Structure formats: C-alpha cells, structure tokens
C-alpha cells in the first residue's frame, strides 16, 4: 500500500514553509493516531519530522524536476517508515525482521514514486499557486 500522507505533508512543507509543514504533519499524525494508531503521538512525531525534512529539501533542491521530486518522496518515505519502525521497536519491543521490513518498504516506496510520477503536473501547478500565496519573498540559496 502506498503512504499518501507522507507525500501530502512533504508537498505542504516543500511549497509553503517549515512551520506550516510541521503543523500539518503533527495535526495529521495525531488524527491518524486517534483513528487507528496503537499509541497517540508516534505518527505525529514522524509526520512532523517529514515536515522539517520537506523544508530542508525546499532550501536545497529544485522542485521543477520530476526526478528530484521522486527522490525527495523516496527519501522521506524511507525516513518515515524507518523512524516508525524504530519507535515501534522501542515501545512495543517487536521482533526485528530486517529482511521483511525492507521488502515491504521497497514496495511502498515504489508505490509512492509511481503516485508522484502520476500526480506530478498537478502537484507542481497547485504547489506554485500555494507557494506564491505563502512565500512572497523567497531567497534562493542554491539549486541543483
């Protein structure tokens, strides 16, 4: 199954600013935890982290290229899932099954990348529209 929440939070963080990205991540995470999570806060922490990572990506990479976007989604999905697994391991003392974990993670990353490829034109259009609203004076540090 793909993880669309990661894409959503990353997208918000990339095109708005860090505060908004983290806020949306944490709120979405708490809602998810309330609805289905085992403990309240785990998803919130990790989606908040994705918000921070998104803003770091925003400062360092271009959002115009499909490839960089795909890599950003890939990296943030991996960070999110590894973080979730690590926190779950600490709290619930689950069995560590690295091989199975990586297998599921790869499928999930693949799904997320495919979704990014499909919705990329939409993401870019909507993103720049939002960006113009939120970031009037954006200072570009460096673009690759």
């Amino acid at each position: 199954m793909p993880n669309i929440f990661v894409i959503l939070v990353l997208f918000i963080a990339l095109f708005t600013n860090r505060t908004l990205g983290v806020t949306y991540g944490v709120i979405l995470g708490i809602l998810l935890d309330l609805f289905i999570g085992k403990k309240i806060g785990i998803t919130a922490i990790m989606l908040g982290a994705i918000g921070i990572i998104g803003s770091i990506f925003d400062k360092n990479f271009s959002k115009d290229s499909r490839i960089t976007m795909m890599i950003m989604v890939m990296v943030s999905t991996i960070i999110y899932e590894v973080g979730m697994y690590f926190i779950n391991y600490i709290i619930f003392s689950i069995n560590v099954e690295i091989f199975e974990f990586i297998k599921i993670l790869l499928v999930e990353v693949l799904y997320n990348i495919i979704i990014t490829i499909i919705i990329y034109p939409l993401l870019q259009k909507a993103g720049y529209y939002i960006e113009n609203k939120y970031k009037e004076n954006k200072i570009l540090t460096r673009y690759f």
Partner: protein
Amino acid sequence: MYKNKKSGILGIILTIIILIMLVILTNIENSNLSYIENVASKLVVPIQNGLTYLKNKINGNSTFFTDINDLKDENKQLKEKNSQLEQSLRELENIKTENETLKEYLSLTEKFSKYETIPGYVVNRDISNYSRTIVISIGKKDGVEEKMPVISDKGLVGHIISVDDNTSKVQTIIDSGSSVSSLMSTTRDSIVCKGTLESTSSLRAMYIPTNTTIIQGDSIETSGIGGIYPKGIHIGTVEKVVNTNNNIDRYAVIKTAVDFDKLETVLVIKNK
C-alpha cells in the same frame, strides 16, 4: 379436307395424351412434385411477405396515433411498478444480509456460551503496512474495556488496546507487536506466538522447549498465562517447523484459524 382430317386426328391424339398425362400427374405422390412446389413458393413467398408487411404497416399506422397515449400511460404505470419492485427487492436484500449477520452472531454466542460476550463488527483497518490493528463498532457504551480479549467464530483475534464511547481498537495477534502465550494441544508444552511482518495469516511460535517434538498440524490454543486471554481459545495449527543449527532458537510457523483479511464479525469476551 385431307389436311383437316389429319389435324383432327392429331388433335384427338394430343387431347388423349394430355388427358393421360393429367391422370398420371394426379396419381403421382405429392412428394415427387414437392421440388416444383418449392420453386414456386420460393418465388412467390418473398413477394407475398413483402406485401403482407406493407399491408400490416399501413394497417398499424392507423392505430399508431390512437395507441400512443395509452402506451404512455402504461409505461408510466410500469415504471412506477418497477421502482416499487426494486425497492422491495432492496429491502429484501437488506433483510437477508441482516438475517445472515444475526445468524452468525447467534452461532458465535452459542459456541462461546461459557463466556459473556459482546458482538461487534469490524469498521476500520490499519492503513500502515507494518501494524495490523482493527477498529470495531462497540465501545465503552456497550461495556467494552481495555485488555478484553476479542474472538471470532474460528478462534482468537486479539485484544482491546483502547476504547472510546462507540468504537474500540483491537491489536490483532498477527500484529508484529503482539505475543500470545500458548499451548500445543497434544504435548501441552508452553510456547509464545508472535506476529510477523511476513504474512497476514501466520504467526511465529518461539521459545519452544528443547526436548519437545512439534507435530505438524497440531492445534495451538491459548494457555491463560499473562492475564489477557482466557485458557483454551483456539489460535491455529502448526504449518511447518523451521529447524536451525541448535534447538534453542528453532521456531514453528502457525497458520491462524481466523482469516484476518476477511474478518467481519467479532465477539469481545467480557468476563475472563
């Protein structure tokens, strides 16, 4: 005169021949002549059909305009009737599904009659790929509390991890954070069944005593140790035994009795 006489005889002969021919023809069986009839009918029937069609069309047209209003009324009535029938069909289907659900509840309650149970159904499943919790439709209002065991008609499902007024979250036994203390039904040896990421229908039985033999197909049930699950609830059967170099860390794969992908109705056990 001669000519006339001759032609008179010829006429007589011809007449006789024709008459004889007629007698023969009328005496021949019909079947021998049917091909001639066939040819004739083949020539005539299409034309006849066409004419009849035209005639019918012309006749029909005269009544077409008078009938159209009647037809409209009839159509309206039929449509109304159709919608009524569809509605009643839907109602019947609803009743049917309700009946099935109630029957399922009844059989569940009968099966686990020694426990006081609350029936409920699954309303949500986990979106994550790594945890397998479910949300069920009963909550505090129905008397559900944390750490109550959850079962289905086939066997053990899991236990309640959190409750709100109308729903509760259940950590299933296949969740990777879950471990259930259990017994092998034949040897009565105590093992621990843990959930794996590997599949949604199998558990890993660990801490198997070194001196015991595991039988494939052996039934696994809860041991009652740990305080959450009561003793004797069926979990599943031994699918295979994975032997490692030493006997200490060998494990068995347990196939769960419950099909978690198709789980719909559950029972929460109230008294332990």
